[in-house]
Structures are given as C-alpha cells and as structure tokens.
C-alpha cells in the first residue's frame, strides 16, 4: 500500500536519496525538509502516514530530530515515526519507544538503508504500527542481559530479540530453522512468562519488545 511520507534529513545527498528510494517503491513523499522546525511545521500542515527523520539536525545540531519526533507523537497520537541515526544509542531508542506505548516506531542505523529490501520492510512495519529496533542496539542489550528476562529460555530470548528487530513470524522461523508453529509456541510462552495482558497479537508483540528493551 503506498504511503504518504515526510522525510527530514539535513544532508541533501541523503535526503534526495531517501526520497528517490521511497518513490521507487511507490510511496509518496509529501515533504522533504532539512531541520526539526520545518519537520514540525510540515506535519502540522499535512499529517502523513509516516515520518522518516534523522536524529541530529539543525537548528541546534543536537538530537533535534529525535525530540521533534517524540513531540510529534504526543501531538499527533501514534504518528508512526522511523528514526535514522548514525549512532547506536540505547537512550535514544528508549526515549522513542517510550512515546505512545511504543507502537509505530523504529530506530535504525543509517547504514541499514543500504539493505534496501529490509529497509523498505521496516518502513512498512513501522507505518503499520509495529516496532523496529536496530539489530546493533539489540545485540548490545542481549550481550549484557541479566535478570527480568531470566525466566525465558535461551531459545525464547533469541526469538524475542529477533522479534524486537521487527521480523515477522515466517521470517523468524526461517532464520532459526524451525517451523512457524514452533515460533508461535515460543512467542506464546514469552507472552505468558512476561505477564503481558491478553490483547491483540500485534500489540502484545510491541509490549514484549519494550519489556525486552527496558529490562
């Protein structure tokens, strides 16, 4: 389904590249802006289906893009935002995921754009209300994982970690060389062990990912 997207990125080369890429996959770029203020203004004028934004941007060249994204999600409830960053920063990812219950957010390293198919899949997942977190962030978290997730088995942690990266069940099954039914069973166990409320499956997925990231 074609999406209406606003792109915010201060590097012209990259901004044009992103616009071209989205176009190629049939999405419409409503606006392409170079700083956080322009992003807020563009969203206010014409709320899109998805915002793709850089973390570091003018005016202050700090994390203006990220802050704008978090604010926008407050104002426009649940506006899907995919944040691109040059750095793996857990605190950036957490800030973003904490906004509006963590539905419809993504945090990816910029270099992931190069894996075009995966990147476009992430775009679709975020726009559809999913959560996508960069494998690098997940990797760091997994390495030092202690505690609240202690209850999970090794395989369940693996499944959860892949889930946090935004993979679908089919994808998970092929990556772990197990059947989709087995994946479903693992996910069910994870939900139970993390005491997640019975809700729609999609929402529980996001909650599980959040529990994983917060732990």
């Amino acid at each position, binding site marked *: 389904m074609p999406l209406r997207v606003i792109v915010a990125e201060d*590097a012209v*080369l*990259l901004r044009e*590249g*992103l616009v*071209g*890429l989205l176009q*190629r996959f049939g999405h419409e770029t409503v606006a392409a802006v170079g700083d956080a203020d322009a992003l807020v203004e563009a969203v206010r004028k014409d709320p899109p289906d998805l915002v793709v934004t850089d*973390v*570091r941007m003018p005016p202050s*060249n*700090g*994390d203006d893009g990220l802050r704008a994204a978090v604010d926008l999600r407050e104002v426009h409830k649940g506006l899907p935002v995919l944040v691109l960053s*040059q*750095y*793996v*920063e*857990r*605190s*950036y990812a957490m800030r973003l995921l904490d906004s509006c219950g963590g539905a419809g957010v993504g945090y990816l*390293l*910029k*270099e992931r*754009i*190069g*894996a*075009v*198919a995966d*990147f476009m899949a992430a775009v679709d997942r975020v726009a559809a209300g999913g959560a996508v977190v960069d494998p690098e962030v997940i990797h*760091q*978290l997994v390495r*030092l994982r*202690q505690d609240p997730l202690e209850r999970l088995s090794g395989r369940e942690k693996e499944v959860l970690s892949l889930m946090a990266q935004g993979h679908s069940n089919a994808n998970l099954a092929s990556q772990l060389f197990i059947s989709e039914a087995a994946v479903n069973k693992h996910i069910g166990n994870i939900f139970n062990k993390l005491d997640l409320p019975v809700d729609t499956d999609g929402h529980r997925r996001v909650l599980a990912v959040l529990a994983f990231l917060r732990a």
Partner: protein
Amino acid sequence: MHPKTAWQAMAQRPLSFLTSSWPWRSLAYLAGGVVVGAAAVLVFATGLVAGLVLLVVLVGVAPLAGVVLSSMAVATVERYRLRLVDLDSLPNPHREPEAPGLRSWVATRLKEQVTWRELMFTLVSAAALWWLDLLVLCFSFGVPVLTFEAADGDTWPWAVFGAVVLLASPYTVTSWAGARAALARTFLAPRDEELGEELKEVRASQVRLLDSFDAERVRIERDLHDGAQQRLVSLGMTLGLMRLDVPEGSPLAERLTEAEGQLATAHKELRSLIRGLNPPVLADHGLVAAIQDYASRFPIPVTVDLQLPGRLPRQLETTMYYVINEAMTNIARHSGAAHAAVRGRYHSDLLVLDISDDGKGGVDPEAGSGLTGLADRLKALGGRMRVSSPAGGPTLLHVEVPCHFA
C-alpha cells in the same frame, strides 16, 4: 646543585663553602644591614617627627603616610640587599594605584596588607635586627682582635679562643645572614593572594588549552558526521539500489555483497572513531546517560550509580566522561575483572567519583597507564585523582573535582 641561599651554601662541603663568595656576601649583607638599619632608624625617626609636625599643620593621613613611606623605602632597599644572600629575587607585591595622583597612591598603599608588613619589618629591623648584625660582626671580628692585642704570657688561652672565633666567623656570619634573610623574606615576600592575579592567569590558560582540544574534537567529529559518514550512507544506498537491478546469484551480486561487507566495516570503524572523539549522547543528554550507554556496550558488567543534581558544566562533563572512559578501558584491557562499578556523588561543591573493579590490581599510576594524562586534565580543573590498587586487587580510582552548579 648550585646553592641559592646562604644556608644552602653552608650545607655544601666545607672547602667549597669557604672558598666560595658566600661568606663574603654574608659579610657584606650584615655590614650593609648595620648601615641600612642605622639609616632606617634615622629616616623612621625623621618620618615620625615630620609626620607629627605635619599633623599640626595639615591634619589627616600625613603622619601615617610619613611613617609608611619611610618603611616602604626600607623594605625596598632590603629587597635589593636580600639578593646578596638569597638569589631568588623577591617580586614587588605592591599593586598599581587605582588612579593617577598622590592621593590615590597613598590610599592604595594604605589599603594593602603588604604595606603594614613592611612597617612591621622596619620596626623589627630598627629595634633589633641591625643591632644583632652589629653584635655578630663585633663578636666574630672584634673579639679576636681584642684577644690578640691583649695577648701575653698569661692570657694566651684567650688568644686561642679569639683564633677559634675568627676561624668560625664565616659560619657565624653566614648563619645569621641566612636567618635574617629568611625573616626578611617572610615579611617582604608577596602572599598568595597578592600573586593571585598571576596565578589565575596560568590556570585559565590551562583550561583554555583543554577547551581548544575539546573544540577541535567536536569539530573533527562534526566534519566526519557531515562529510564522510553521509557519503558512506549514500554509497550504501546506491549499492542497495544496484542490487535491486542485479539478478540474484550472478557474479555481480557476489561483488556487491563484498562491497557491502567492506562498507559495513567502514561504518563500524567510523562509528567507534567518532564515539571516542565526542559521544553525541554526552552533548545531548549529559554525563549520566553517556556513561550508562557506555556501560551497556562494555564487555563486563558495570554497575552505574551516578547521582548528580543536574547537568555538569560542559568542561567538567567532558573531562569526567573521559576519566571514566579511560579508567574503564583500562579495566577491560588489564584488570581481568568480572565486575566493575562507577559511583558518583555531589557533596557541597565537590564532585566525588569512585571507579572500582574486582580485578587483579597492581595498577601503577606512574607507569604511563593513561592515568597520568587524566590526572593532568583533572588538575587543570582544580581536582585530583588517587588510586588504590594492591597486587591481587581490588582497584579503586578516587576522583575529586570542585564543581559549582550555575
């Protein structure tokens, strides 16, 4: 080592002392002391009398100014004379008057503490020092002369005594000269606060140097971020688009995979380079967040317990980040620890930081472990660092830096 004072000279080997100029310098100093002392008494008395007379005519600060002026003259002469027995010259601690004109000059001088120390010195000098100078000289040279003159068959032991006194005179004279010089220095040397302006200046330049390092680091990081990194990302995007047009499994696709792999490595290296330069999260979210992020990437578990009332001043924040970073890098490389802890507290204008690990210890702070460089950085901010690391561990790094929240 070349002696710089009379006392240091006396501590040399006797022969080199006796053949050096020091006994003569001391003699000259004491002889001069007698002359100056006598003159000081004269000037002082004159100043006092003149002041009292002027008091009748002019009223006001005139008598005080007279006394003070004469004591300043005595002190100035003493500072010059002091170089005879103390090679470190004494700087003049007097400030420039606030405004031109005699009135402001007198006002400035009367407000300075050093003026009153000079007055004290002049009083002590006039009342005792120059008499003692005279006494020492008389004893060292007068006594032998008298005993030699009076020497005959019965009193030869006295002559022997006189000879001993004369032989000891270089030491007697130099001892007193050294003591007198030490006393003069105590009174006439500038106090720290009188040197204050100068001291502050040096410190400021140290901080400026650190500042310029940090500014340079930020600049390089920005240049990499805006330049090389963006180009690499665009390159990745171009490769990604190419892949869409290349049939899977073809030789070209293999080459593409190779290129992508190299690109990923370049990204990774650039990222770690930039992180070492100027972590963006430090600038955006402060020390606590930056350290927590750092700890989450750390190869061994770290307990981070930093409690600060707010964002630290920028310079301090950067320094503390590098201190913790360097200390933890050392832990990862050398300590063999299974666990590390970073604890920070703010106690009434003092930031206290403890970085500890349960490793094998034996850190030698002198052995260029990178700790000395950190200690220098901390020192520029008026802080200090101490290490406890017995062989067998544990290691504790304790840092204290003055810190004022704006």
